[in-house]
């Protein structure tokens, strides 16, 4: 299995996705603080690298399942910012017509199949998406995202076992941000590395620095090649941190101050930006042009969301079943 250094074009593409995720997140929180938007928002600020790197290896045909902290995964996979923002704002023009919200983002035309609000539930569903591809003889793969807390729920273990027994083309991506809601990793998890749990299911378990785009890219490349070629599943544990608590409003008292300060000091976004310029993968001017483009895209998304109409009340009668209910 090849382990290649991504070229400059790919590295910049990863940065562009990170910038979109980071700036969109900052702006959502700003809109919430200003009182323009209200929602249960689970920020993924700090975790941008992981989906940004993985998604450069995926096509629109590949499937993605993620969780309530999944806006970053969805943006990276191709959910248009406009449709995301309108959905977060609860508008009729949102990707789910305002019926799902941040915890249920869906956009099948880019492979964004399911977002679940239930810890652990992404993995069994991902196994089914992968089963469908396997039965149809397709080469597409499925990526399932989840957090470190989810590795302690039964669905994780059932899914890894099933994926291994059936050799499903699935990549299980644990975004280990060190806290399961308010409980620290060590208090709730029996192993030093979640990746070690893969051994119990006879599949590769890759432990990577989730704040290093190149490391994530290379791990994902191995896993995706294995899945596409019929080799079966891989568990990737990407070590990261979330800067804005479990959800907005969480003051993070349970996070040791030194740990938080160290994580913020290691913020992957500015670090990667400097690295790209220092290593001549992009010029400052190119990076600034990307950022200007992202800012314009988010301006447009926010304006679209704010100016869109709310859903009509009749929508509560629709989409319960294939037919409208009385």
């Amino acid at each position, binding site marked *: 299995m090849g382990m290649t250094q991504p070229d400059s074009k790919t590295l910049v593409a990863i940065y562009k996705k990170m910038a979109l995720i980071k700036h969109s997140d900052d702006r959502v929180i700003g809109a919430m603080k200003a009182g323009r938007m209200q929602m249960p928002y689970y920020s993924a600020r700090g975790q941008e690298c992981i989906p940004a790197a993985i998604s450069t290896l995926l096509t629109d045909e590949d*499937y993605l*399942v993620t969780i309530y902290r999944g806006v970053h995964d969805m943006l990276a996979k191709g959910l248009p910012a406009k449709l995301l923002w309108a959905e977060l704002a609860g508008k009729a023009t*949102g*990707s*789910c*017509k*305002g*019926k*799902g919200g941040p915890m*249920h983002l*869906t*956009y*099948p035309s880019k492979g964004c*199949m*399911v977002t*679940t*609000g*239930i810890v652990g*539930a992404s*993995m*069994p*569903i*991902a*196994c*089914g*998406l*992968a*089963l*469908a*591809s396997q*039965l149809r003889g397709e080469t597409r793969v*499925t990526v399932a995202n989840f957090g470190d807390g989810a590795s302690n729920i*039964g*669905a994780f273990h*059932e*899914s890894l*076992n*099933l994926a291994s*027994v*059936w050799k499903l083309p699935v990549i299980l991506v644990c975004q280990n941000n060190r806290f399961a809601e308010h409980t620290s990793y060590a208090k709730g998890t029996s192993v030093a590395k979640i990746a070690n749990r893969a051994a119990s299911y006879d599949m590769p378990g890759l432990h990577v620095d989730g704040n290093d785009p190149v490391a994530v890219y290379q791990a994902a490349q191995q896993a995706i090649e294995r899945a596409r070629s019929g080799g079966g599943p891989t568990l990737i544990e990407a070590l990261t941190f979330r800067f804005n608590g479990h959800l907005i409003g969480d003051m993070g008292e349970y996070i040791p101050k030194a740990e938080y300060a160290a994580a913020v000091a290691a913020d992957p976004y500015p670090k990667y930006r400097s690295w790209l310029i220092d290593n001549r993968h992009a010029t400052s001017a190119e990076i600034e042009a990307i950022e200007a483009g992202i800012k314009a895209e988010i301006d447009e998304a926010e304006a679209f969301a704010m100016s869109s109409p709310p859903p009509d009340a009749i929508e509560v009668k*629709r*989409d*319960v*079943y*294939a037919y409208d*209910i009385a």
Partner: protein
Amino acid sequence: MDTNTSTQQKAAAPVNMIQALNWALHDAMEEDANVIHFGEEVGDAEGGGIVKISAGLSTKFGSRVRSTPISEMGFMGAAVGAAVVGMKPVVEVMLMNFVAVCMDQITNHAAKLRFMSGGQTHVPMVIRTMTGSGFQNGGQHSDFLEAWFCHTPGIKVVMPSNPADGYGLLRSAIDDPDPVLFIDHLNNYWTPGVAPVRGTKIPLGKARIHQPGKDVTVIGYSRSMLDIPPVAAKLEAEGISVEIIDLRTVSPIDMDTVLASVKKTGRAVIVHEAVKSFGVGAELSSRIHEALFRELKAPVERVASNDSPVPYAPPLEAAFLYSHADIEAAIRKTLA
């Protein structure tokens, strides 16, 4: 079990529910390559299912039929995922009580993804399971839990009482664009009935008038459809005319058929094996009262099982379940 015998040869001979459901699975899989089937022990190497409903299918359809590990949450979620991209999984939960270990995937996901995605995805899957008291299986292998799912918008609940309905309803459940919970009664499996005409589908949400009558409407489904007719026959001898409705689909309920009948008779009795409180009978009774209060000649009666876990010892198991005498007493009460 022979799944390949031609329709012509078998059509006339009575069959049981096991054969009828096996035919339905076979015919659906033959017709549509998207239909897949999995669950514990459904493969032929593992016996073709505990009562052999899946017999012959893995031999004929290969990897589309799979025995799973004992991982209800895992394989239920896999069915949801496969259905989201257009497969039509028929997933078997060996006994109904085991749905408790995979409720999240059924109620939070299968039932809700269409709505939460704003109609972008939907989940065309069937969950087939079986249950029923009377086999000394005790408190965790016997419950009728249909009310849990009737209380969950987004999923349908189908409970056939006879082989022909079983075949036709299962075919429609597999075709349905939304998730369907399909519940068999262990007690009904070996009762011979009229053979289904293969290929004939019975629409979901449509009740069947089992027997017309004019004095009282008795509404049942699943196992109670074995118990109501003999009681009605006994009362017929006294000149009491009972109209019997088999709901077939428990959610959504065919209120048009129910209300037309009760409007005519002015009296209604509901009979189900599930425990009485907060059950399907309560919902049906409430709807009948709301629609026909002034036309009713008596309050609607419910006949159901005792509000306890299903016991083990035969005398206790008998005391748990309603009796024919209970059905008779409820009918007489509406006529008093």
